[in-house]
């Protein structure tokens, strides 16, 4: 009996004493690495930011919107009236790049000529197939007009398009990205005439004109408003809080606001 027990005691060699702990440590380390990698890369901050597809025409926003200073709405004409910010019809490109006008024979404009120039040998009359790169999921409803008519600039979601030779996805457009702003809308509000001025700085806003505008909106005297703000820092937060109050902006945070 004693002999048998002794023999059984030797079935597991010494190195097995720590085996369970070692397996636990290894599985733990592996799990931690998998989670860390997923945490870092399984998010729109990784999967979408930086998306820079090649477009049929290498349209240069930094030239048109930046250097030439053209307003976003010259091309995206219906952004103030529609949930969908439209891409321009080929006719809009043709206004400047038609025959005898700017760079009309550039090889880069080949797809435009195919769409518009009836005398061109490869004329198809079919629209230019631009590649969509900013997209919220189809179960989330985003309304452009609701935002640009209430002081949220293009730059808040799209970044400095006027500095991009090739447009890329600059912000994550994830749900937390939306909520960040909907929780603190004053961080993004600006006067309506500066919506498409992507380089706008709140410090540049003229306080007197701003208080006069507020006075007209709220019915409080401009001087009273100004006096109440004495000692406060003139910047985005102050401007945003005023505009939010004046316009009655209540950025909704309930599910049905976007998922309906």
């Amino acid at each position, binding site marked *: 009996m004693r002999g048998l027990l002794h023999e059984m005691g030797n079935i597991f060699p010494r190195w097995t004493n720590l085996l369970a702990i*070692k397996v636990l*440590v*290894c599985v733990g*380390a*592996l799990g931690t*690495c998998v989670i860390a*990698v997923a945490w*870092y*890369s*399984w998010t*729109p*901050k*990784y*999967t*979408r*930011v*930086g*998306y*820079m*597809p*090649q477009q049929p025409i290498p349209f240069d926003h930094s030239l048109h919107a930046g250097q*030439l*200073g*053209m*307003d976003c*709405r*010259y091309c995206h*004409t219906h952004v*103030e*009236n*529609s*949930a*969908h910010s*439209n*891409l*321009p*019809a080929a*006719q*809009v490109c*043709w*206004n*400047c790049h*038609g025959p*005898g*006008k*700017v*760079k009309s024979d550039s090889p880069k404009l080949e797809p435009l000529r195919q769409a518009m120039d009836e005398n061109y040998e490869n004329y198809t009359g079919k629209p230019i197939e631009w590649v969509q790169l900013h997209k919220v*999921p*189809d*179960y989330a409803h985003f309304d452009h007009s609701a935002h640009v*008519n209430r002081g949220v600039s293009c730059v808040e979601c799209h970044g400095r398009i006027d500095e991009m030779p090739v447009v*890329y*996805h600059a912000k994550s457009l994830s749900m937390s990205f939306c909520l960040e702003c909907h929780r603190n809308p004053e961080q993004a509000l600006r006067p*309506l*005439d500066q919506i498409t001025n992507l380089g706008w700085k709140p410090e540049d806003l003229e306080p007197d004109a701003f208080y006069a505008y507020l006075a007209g909106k709220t019915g409080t005297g401009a001087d009273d408003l100004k006096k109440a703000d004495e000692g406060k820092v003139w910047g985005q937060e102050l401007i945003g809080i005023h505009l939010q109050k004046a316009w009655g902006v209540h950025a909704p945070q309930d599910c049905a606001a976007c998922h309906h």
Partner: protein
Amino acid sequence: MRWFFLILAIAVVATVYALGPRGAKFSSPPFMLFPDMDNQYKVKAQKPSDFFENGQGARVPVEGTEPLGFKFPVSGEGVGRTDLDFSRGSDYLNTGLFGDFYGKGFPGELTMDAAFLERGRERYRITCAPCHGDSGNGAGVVSKYWAIPPTANLIDARVRDMPEGQIFWTISHGKGLMGPYNGVTSVRDRWAITAYLRGLQAVAGN
């Protein structure tokens, strides 16, 4: 154990290297693990659709019909969100014409006030100024960089003497090298631009 951690370290480095940092530029469509609900099978703005015979998602009204109650919501800010949107009609408001002649003056449907002029100023800056210039003198930013045939000087006597209807008609249909703008500016905005242009001409004087 030592081997395990060595292999794990190599695997992690390889994965991180293959994935790259956040924000790195790439051109292939973004990766989606469960794309089903993100990309629903439905008609979307400015997208083709294989549901319809001609492949177009956007439908045109059946011939001989007019869409009912097609109006943009009216907003409290400025004059925007017009109800005189992209209407089509044969009256003066929609054409700038009385029969075969350009009409003079502004249509009665419009209210001439400061907000209307302000709307005109805004739309002029967006749509017209790149070529015709902020002051209307025909020296917009385009002429600064490219030698294209001269753009009309809107403040000289020729345009000043034009009837309003002709200016409206020209914005709508274009003239010479200028393309039509009736697809991108609403009827009301085209009249607002016309009104603002009258203001520019008055300021330029003589």
